[in-house]
């Protein structure tokens, strides 16, 4: 076309500049990645320091605690030996060194409440916690985003009212209380409602039903804690999704999409959602802390054998090294999630990518 010729010289120019932008963009990404990882490592170090300070400045006498908790006689020599074996006689900086080393090697110190390395307590409980939080998050995300997008797409309609109302109420419910109530109603059976779910644990002791049976059995135990966590967490996702979608509603690109002849739900799915998801994704990742809080109380209420229950039990003694270990684990997972969120955001949002 005629106009193309007119515009000729400019094209060359812009292509060149775009080529340059590409390579610089790639190096910028590595730069960004390196920076983020370093930041995360620094955060981790800060967390380690905070953890150490918290659990070392605490007025403590773990040796006496063990002696008394054991209910068994111990003489002075034994107590001294215990002190030594716990490394309590070393100077602080040395203990910090050991502690950092233990954290790096995932040894995480020694629980004097359980007489085991914290790692051997923590590691087998990561699985159940991941299962519980992972599945609840997944369900919450699917449910929350789905409901949130439906509600936000047509704000003010009955679906929106119901979704917003429900999420508000569930947001206000203390997790542990909701768990207790569900346990009473569905785990014990109230009035005409029969006992539907087990009262705790992750599997039926002594039950052996092959792989399918085991999966069903775990699912059966998972139901109540999972539902509790979902109810509390999904409410937040509904709210976030709804409001970020509402933020997108007025945007002209949606009008463009409609003008192209797209069906309403395609406009939502192909255009509005990808944009509304951007802020939502970050928030979901940033809310991992809330999920951890939820897991601690839910696991406590339902005897779910995960890190949360471990924390609760450690808190009762309090088993400081164990608390420290779980604290570091939780913090590390949050830092990791933040890192993932940052990177993910960069991957999914081209605008950020360019910066």
């Amino acid at each position, binding site marked *: 076309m005629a106009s193309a010729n007119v515009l000729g010289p400019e094209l060359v120019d812009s292509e060149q500049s775009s080529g340059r932008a590409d390579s610089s963009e790639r190096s910028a990404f590595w730069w960004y990645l390196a920076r983020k990882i370093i930041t995360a490592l620094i955060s981790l170090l800060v967390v380690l320091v905070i953890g150490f300070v918290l659990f070392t400045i605490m007025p403590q006498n773990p040796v006496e605690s063990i002696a008394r908790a054991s209910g068994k006689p111990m003489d002075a020599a034994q107590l001294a030996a215990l002190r030594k074996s716990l490394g309590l006689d070393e100077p602080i900086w040395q203990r910090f060194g050991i502690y950092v080393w233990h954290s790096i090697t995932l040894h995480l110190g020694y629980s004097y409440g359980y007489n085991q390395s914290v790692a051997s307590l923590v590691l087998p409980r990561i699985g159940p916690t991941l299962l519980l939080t992972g599945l609840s998050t997944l369900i919450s995300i699917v449910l929350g985003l789905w409901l949130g997008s439906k509600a936000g797409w047509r704000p003010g309609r009955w679906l929106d009212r119901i979704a917003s109302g429900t999420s508000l109420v569930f947001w206000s419910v203390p997790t542990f209380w909701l768990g207790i109530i569900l346990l009473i109603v569905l785990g014990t059976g109230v009035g005409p409602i029969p006992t539907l779910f087990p009262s705790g644990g992750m599997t039926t002791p002594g039950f052996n039903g092959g792989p399918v049976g085991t999966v069903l059995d775990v699912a059966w135990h998972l139901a109540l804690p999972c539902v509790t966590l979902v109810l509390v967490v999904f409410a937040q996702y509904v709210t976030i999704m709804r409001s970020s979608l509402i933020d997108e509603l007025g945007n002209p690109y949606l009008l463009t999409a409609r003008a192209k002849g797209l069906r309403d739900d395609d406009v939502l799915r192909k255009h509005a959602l990808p944009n509304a998801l951007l802020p939502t994704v970050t928030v979901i990742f940033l809310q991992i802390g809330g999920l*951890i809080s939820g897991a601690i109380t839910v696991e406590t209420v339902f005897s779910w054998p995960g890190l949360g229950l471990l924390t609760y039990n450690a808190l009762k003694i309090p088993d400081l090294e164990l608390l420290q270990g779980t604290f570091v684990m939780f913090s590390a997972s949050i830092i990791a999630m933040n890192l993932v969120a940052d990177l993910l955001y960069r991957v999914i949002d081209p605008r950020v990518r360019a910066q």
Partner: protein
Amino acid sequence: MTAATQVPSPNQSVINRGTPPRTQALRNFGSAYVRNTWGMIGLVVLLAFTIMALTAPVWIHDSDLSAAAATGPLLAPPQHGYPLGTDQPGRSVLLLLIYGSRPSLAIGVIATVATVVIGAAIGLIAGHYQGIVSNLLMRVTDWFIALPGLPLAISLSVVLGQGPVSITIAIAITSWTGAARLVRAQTLAVEARPYIERARALGAGNTQIMIRHVLPNVMPLILVSSTLTVAGAILSETTLTFLGLGNPTDVSWGSMINQAFTQGAITAGAWWYVLPPGLAIVVVVLGFTLVGRAVEAILNPRMVNR
């Protein structure tokens, strides 16, 4: 000249108000708020609970709360004289419930004030001044965000010794980051607006810009965020108390549920001991949330347009 001959439309009111009263904005806000049904419901709920909490000591005596002086039947369902039944030592659950609002509300509000003051100050400074100060503040905020809320609060309570003071501190320390981030983001947004440039061009300095332009525009957000923070703080307080980090001799909603939980009231089917404190928490938290959302809806011009 045309500019000079511009005529006022006849129906415009020609009342000389002199210096326009600043209370006008407040009055507008008030009338808009009154029209917000859910906001009003939330407000009424909160007022009711506040009045209840404040006046509780006047008509609930120590003897009503003392297990030793309790005269009621032990863990009995609702009955005459005990509208919500009794707890294990035979105290009236209703009176405990009313009195229990005090620590929950007090801790919630105090922790929020601390949270918001710290968060707003840091967010405002980090947003207004560019450079090292801002970067450093944001780093610190990031570090704190990386700390898991409940475990940190647990640790702090363990370290600081149990009780309401530790819980308050723990909540404030774990939640100011949210406010700081929010305020900083909003400050940055406001600072990018041309009216800030106009103010600078008119001769305003840093402090004047922050106080005259940024703060008033950030304030509503702070207000909204603080009502939501109270809601969160109350939930945190009850959770920490439930986990046994409160003062077990205090009467509070969290400790009521904790006692019901540890004493086995659930087995006994003592719903009157488990349900009311939980529902009270839900209602109060909901109240704060509703008020927060109503304020947000009124103050956020974007939402007004919709």
